[in-house]
């Protein structure tokens, strides 16, 4: 058991993450401080929530390019409606996640009913959802959001005050993301639905013959990623305190990069929730270190691109290895 963990993708990632942190800290002393680490944890919580949803999709062998559009729509509609009356934060989360799940079910319907590739469906629905919102909304951005959004982002599970007066702590936003991660892990590990998702990703035909209800599983998967996109969008409103129609739209790549870095493959059936979180933190750690080392932000896409290429290459290599291993066993 122990040896299996030492050989796992998660352990390798963790080792790289720690090694990287120590290296950056040697150059810029402000990396490995409680303040910076908790800050990374907080700012990465939005991408973390999205990444967990996208991980579940990729586990089932699909891909979702529409989740930033879903997040943008559910964020806008939820906040817009809440502005009409005296709303509160739980209501915001509830509404956004329901809208997200509803939009996700559109993806699920198209994918299941017409059997078209998930990439084509979600590429199409992404521009449908986003375009429809921008066409129908008279003013697509909201700059003054109710105070309860902001208050939530400044709450901590535990915190202490430094001598300088700055508060350091474990943000509620990060806590929410970790709760979602834990629930998803339990779902994948201990429920029949979770096993079904793994089975679907491993081999759809076999999963069907084993008696899994593919329709139900697929609807769950795409509604789930929609729901998490909705939750992530409200987390985002809490953090940045405004609603903007384009800010979330470039996130597909970064989130997919994080998920792939975390060990998931496009072929489905592989990866873990822990790996996904490590992938997200890795990307944020690298970004944060670029800032600390004063490297201009236009280097960002180069680094992210290299990370995607490198992590997908490693995954492809590992799969190649596994194939030869099984061939040896079979012989």
């Amino acid at each position, binding site marked *: 058991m122990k040896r299996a963990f030492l050989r796992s993708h998660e352990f390798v990632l963790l080792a790289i993450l720690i090694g990287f942190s120590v290296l950056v800290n040697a150059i810029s002393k402000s990396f490995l401080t409680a303040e910076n680490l908790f800050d990374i944890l907080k700012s990465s919580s939005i991408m973390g929530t999205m990444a967990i949803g996208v991980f579940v999709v990729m586990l089932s062998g699909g891909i979702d390019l529409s989740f930033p559009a879903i997040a943008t729509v559910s964020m806008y509609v939820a906040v817009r409606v809440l502005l009409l009356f005296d709303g509160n934060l739980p209501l915001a989360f509830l509404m956004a996640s329901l809208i997200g799940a509803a939009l996700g079910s559109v993806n699920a319907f198209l994918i299941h009913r017409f059997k078209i590739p998930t990439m084509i469906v979600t590429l199409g629905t992404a521009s449908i959802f986003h375009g429809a919102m921008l066409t129908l909304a008279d003013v697509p951005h909201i700059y003054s959001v109710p105070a309860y959004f902001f208050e939530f982002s400044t709450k901590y599970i535990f915190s202490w005050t430094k001598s300088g007066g700055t508060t350091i702590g474990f943000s509620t936003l990060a806590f929410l993301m970790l709760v979602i991660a834990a629930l998803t892990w339990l779902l994948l590990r201990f429920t029949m639905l979770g096993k079904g998702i793994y089975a679907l990703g491993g081999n759809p035909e076999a999963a069907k013959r084993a008696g899994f209800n593919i329709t139900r599983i697929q609807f769950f998967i795409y509604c789930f990623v929609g729901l998490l996109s909705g939750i992530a969008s409200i987390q985002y409103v809490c953090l940045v305190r405004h609603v903007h129609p384009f800010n979330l739209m470039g996130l597909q790549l970064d989130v997919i990069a994080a998920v792939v870095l975390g060990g998931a493959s496009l072929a489905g059936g592989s990866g873990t929730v822990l790996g996904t979180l490590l992938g997200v933190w890795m990307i944020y750690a690298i970004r944060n270190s670029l800032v600390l080392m004063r490297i201009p932000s236009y280097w960002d896409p180069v680094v992210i691109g*290299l990370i995607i290429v490198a992590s997908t290459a490693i995954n492809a290599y590992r799969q190649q290895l596994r194939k030869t291993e099984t061939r040896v066993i079979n012989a």
Partner: protein
Amino acid sequence: MPDLKTARPRLVSPRSATYIIAFVVVFAVLAILQPSKFLSRTNIQQMAFQLPEFGVLALAMMVAMLSGGIDLSITFSSNLAGIASALVLLSLSYGGAVDFQSLLKGIMAEGVSPAAVTAPTGIVMLGIVLLSVLVAVAVAGLCGLLNGLLVAKVKIPPILATLGTMKLYEGLSLVITRGSPITSFPKPYLFIGSGSVLHVPFPLIVFVLCAIAVSVFLRKTPLGFSIYAVGENPTAARFSGLRNDRILMKTYLVTGLLVGVAAVLMISRVDSVKVGYGNSYLLQAVLVVILGGVSTRGGSGTVLGVIFGILILRMISSGFNIIGFSNHFRNVIWGSMLVLVTIVNNAVPALADRLKARR
């Protein structure tokens, strides 16, 4: 070897015939509804100059999709190629008057007026223009080769590989230009994108030549056959003695070379280059390739079908212009079309099978 004669794509497949009908219908509807605007000289001219850059990009996407893959990096590799081409062009033609550093910031920003600097003329200028075109094609070719390497040798799924390189090419373009545009190309270069020969737009001639070249390449060369074979069934292709990895490398190289041509057409038409130009072409390129009858799983489709796809899309697009649809609403329509056409394309073979079975 499999019997390639039966695998050979016909010039006009029944599916292409459907597209010819669709083309005529769309054309007729627009011509009847808005004859004064749609059939006006300016509208047709505008279409004739805008279509080629997108058309060549769509051909590039088609080649990648025929092999069962996809290239999501085309718009940003065309940006990178355009930037490289523009840098070579400007530093050679305004040599001495413009240093490299100010080029990177955009020469206009430095207050240097290129009009005051006399660019070389005659054969020297022709050489410079040819060289910068070659640079664009070479850079885009290298981008394609990297994609091919990642897909064929490292065996990364094409979506992920090109998603990664898309970000990479965008980043490199940003690092070189810091996001500012490069403009003021010498006149002879602008001819490529906006000149005419005997009233025929020069870019249109380039597009037609590219289309013929790709068609001949796919139908008459061994590599062309092999791309279809690998797209249709990679395992079968391997067992019939094809070297899949080499074929895929060359596929993405061809895609890259075409992207380079599109890059030159694009930047010489608008007389500038900037990161993010032609971003909306990506979704549309996938759309016309699927519209043109190329299967989402690879292996089938003709150049003629894709050309009709391009024509239909451009006509609808200019129809939107006339009606005055917003860009956002257009995205809704493109997205819906992508999903609908894929559904129809997937349903048609199944329906045909059912009819055959009944008989």
